[in-house]
């Protein structure tokens, strides 16, 4: 039954696409997105051919910047569809009221956990987990077990092994900070637990963890499997990173993710139709396109993230080497926006001793 409904909607979608072609030959849809966005040529070409819509892509900075720009240009948007707001910035975008609701029929195949906005002002497109990556060879050579919890990272055997990113300016850095907050809580919590995330960070820094400005510096500048200069075999990165260390000649990957319970934070990326668009119909088609199996299966190798559509198959390399954590840290997205500045300020004070 469900399948038939799905097929019918798909046909309707394509028909409405045809109508648009008939009405107006040159609809140009502008997608506003971040610098990490990418899509295969043929996948986008298929959409353009099927709908007659020309897609232009405007990119600037990261997800946070895209949201800020959309808020500053509210009512007179830079484009029609925004892609790239994640759950750490979602609340800011929703509060600013920059999206027109649209409930895509394809949401049927998307797990409930990804649908964070009941009003469907944003549609989930992909997700990725920020997890620790480790240098497999280093841990094997030193006969060192892989840490199994965040708390393990403060043990003496892991002294000077971990490089993390500054949560104030790095998105995976913030994700990791949130994971530690979910695990240890904050001083403001009412519970009896008196070991907070700030205590954990004090211990982590005392255990010689290195904090860098960005993912690039951490991964390519300090991680042992990222560059020749690196001396840290543990790095805060993505669960999707290990497939990219696959070596065809040796047929092995040199890194793996640690996906133990509570050690990862899940970033979900959303798309939304920008209020003020003159191409709402085309924008809806584009949202449907982004949820379609074709686009969703394209996502892993273009953007290093996972599809939210359960019908989409993962590429072989991903299926084999990218682990998906079953119990990522859970933090309410509204709490993130409300507390981000305080969390980071307290973190900065703790880590820098200011």
């Amino acid at each position, binding site marked *: 039954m469900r399948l038939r409904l799905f097929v019918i909607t798909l046909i309707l979608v394509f028909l409405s696409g045809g109508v648009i072609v008939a009405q107006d030959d040159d609809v140009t849809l*502008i997608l*506003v997105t971040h*610098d990490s*966005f*990418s*899509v*295969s*040529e*043929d*996948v*986008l070409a298929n959409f353009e051919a099927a709908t007659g819509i020309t897609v*232009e*892509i*405007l*990119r*600037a*900075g*990261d997800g*946070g*910047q895209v949201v*800020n*720009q959309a*808020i*500053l*240009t509210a009512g*007179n948007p*830079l484009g029609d569809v925004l892609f790239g707001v994640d759950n750490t910035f979602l609340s*800011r975008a929703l509060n600013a009221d920059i999206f027109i609701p649209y409930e895509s029929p394809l949401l049927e195949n998307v797990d409930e956990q990804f649908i964070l906005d009941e009003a469907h002002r944003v549609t989930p497109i992909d997700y990725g987990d920020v997890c620790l990556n480790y240098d497999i060879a280093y841990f094997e050579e030193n006969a060192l077990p892989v840490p199994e919890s965040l708390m393990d990272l403060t043990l003496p055997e892991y002294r000077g092994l971990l490089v993390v990113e*500054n949560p*104030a*300016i790095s998105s995976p850095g*913030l994700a990791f900070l949130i994971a530690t907050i979910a695990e240890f809580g904050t001083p403001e919590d009412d519970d009896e637990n008196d070991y907070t995330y700030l205590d954990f960070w004090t211990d982590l820094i005392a255990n010689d963890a290195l*904090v*860098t*400005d*960005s*993912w*690039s*510096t951490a*991964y*390519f*500048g300090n991680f042992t499997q*990222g*560059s*020749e*200069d690196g*001396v840290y075999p543990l790095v805060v990165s*993505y669960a999707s*990173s290990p497939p*990219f*260390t696959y070596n065809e000649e040796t047929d092995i990957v040199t890194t793996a993710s640690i996906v133990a319970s509570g050690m990862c934070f899940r970033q979900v990326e959303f798309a939304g139709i920008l209020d003020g668009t003159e191409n709402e119909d085309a924008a809806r088609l584009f949202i449907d396109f982004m949820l379609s199996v074709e686009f969703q299966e394209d996502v892993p*190798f*273009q953007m*290093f993230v996972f599809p939210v559509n359960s019908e989409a198959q993962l590429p072989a390399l991903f299926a084999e080497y990218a682990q998906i954590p079953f119990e990522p840290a859970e933090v309410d997205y509204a709490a993130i926006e409300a507390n*981000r*500045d305080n969390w*980071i300020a307290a973190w900065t004070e703790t*880590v*820098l001793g*200011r």
Partner: protein
Amino acid sequence: MTMWRWMWYGFLLVPLLFLALFFLYPLLAIFDLSLRPDNSWNLSGFTQIVTSAYYRDTLIFTIWQAVLSTVLTIGLALPGAYVFTRFDFPAKSFLLSIATLPFVLPTVVVATAFSALIGARGIVNQVLMSLFSLETAPIQLERTLSIILIVHVFYNYSIALRMITSYWANQSTRIEDAARVLGANGWRIWWHVRLPMLRPAILASAILVFIFTFTSFGVVLILGGIQFATLEVQIYYQALNVFNLPLAAALSLLQIAVMFAMMLIYTRLQRRISSVDLQSTRQIARKPKTPFERLFLIVNLGTMIVFLFTPLLALIYRSLVREGAFTLEYYTALTSNTRNSVLFAPAIEAIGNSLQFAIITTIAALLLGVLTAYLIAGKGINRTVSRWLDPLFMLPLATSAVTLGFGFIIALDTPPLDLRSSVWLIPIAHTLVAIPFVVRSILPALRSIPLHVKESAAILGAPPHRIWWSIDLPLLSRGLIVGATFAFTVSMGEFGASLFVARPNTPTMPIVIFRLLGQPGATNYGQALAMSSLLMLVSAASFIAIERIRSAGIGEF
């Protein structure tokens, strides 16, 4: 005659209009939105700054590191400039041209080069450790103020070297000779003759280096590590991550205020020099004669080459070697769209885009910069007005790129000026940053043109354009080349707000580098280094071409 004059005044207004439209208007718009949302003032940002010890410390550190960087840069560049002015040696103009190379490289890449050289596992440490059989690396500069200063000097050395050299090249040695005859030597000549004579050029380059390092972002973040933060870093954080616009605006204004204060000191120190004695370069530069002169020349050039070029060579080396074996795979990978991405740009396209933007920027910055310099130095213009105009045109250099980027999208949003997603916004943003370089490069020379020479020419019946062509232009030519080189470099290196505006798919070389460095995998890293090497190669070729244009087209004095 009067028509000429009115046309001239009209021309002089062009840079002002450009600045007003593309800089002041967006800047005021974003300040207005940040500090006066809903038509009532929100000055919470200022209160936060004033009451917080953290921001006071940040301000002090920002100024302190900028002062140190400036002093070091000028101190090292002065002997270099002497060598380039007074001596003839092989490959002189080539060396001078490519000394500007560090300036085009993104900080992430330069950081890589420095850790390959002097990092804990770097070449220098490995050699020292094996030579003296040491257990730990003797050079431990990572995340210290020293490494920030070293890299600041690495970036800015060429600004000082080139600006001072271009000014010095036409300064006569007669006073110096006289002083020597009267028994002065060594430091006395430096202190009493050369330094006062070079003051305009030293100050002009010092103010640029100061502002550049004052707004330093990447170097401090990447190499300094988390314990160091400049105002620029705070603005970035407040504007992008916290979205606290009142605080970001207040910090931006603080930055601008410091720059204005520095410019005020600068104009104070930069008193007009009453009589300047000019001489042809051919009479000033000669081959080194005494063994001491030869040693001085070799030590100077040696230091410069080692300091500037070994980090660059380390980059090129790494782009060509994988696991100890020579390979071109990173370069070939740059041309193949392995992931079949719609946004992929083959290397040649990125090079093309970069060159196009850089050429447009250079031409625009030269035209506007020359007019600006005449506007500032001009007779007929009130001294007080010109004193305010000068810092005004320096402002884009001292304005946080994030702030200006936001300004662009909220101000330039209605037709016919809806430039928010236009490709033109990129060369416009580059030109804004490039104009101060052109102005500073030619202003000292422009001010030193003796009035009586031009008056004599006028009395002898030369029309204004003839005077400009035969007197001004040859004397300004060196400064123009330096200005053009830096304008070109600013654009190639992608400085300024253009990184913070939404751009259509016109990737430049630095953008490709950033994108590659944002993805895991050894091939991406290698490709980023290969693209950086190409960026250096293309820039070096362009610098040499710019130099050629001068020797072919414009006369020399």
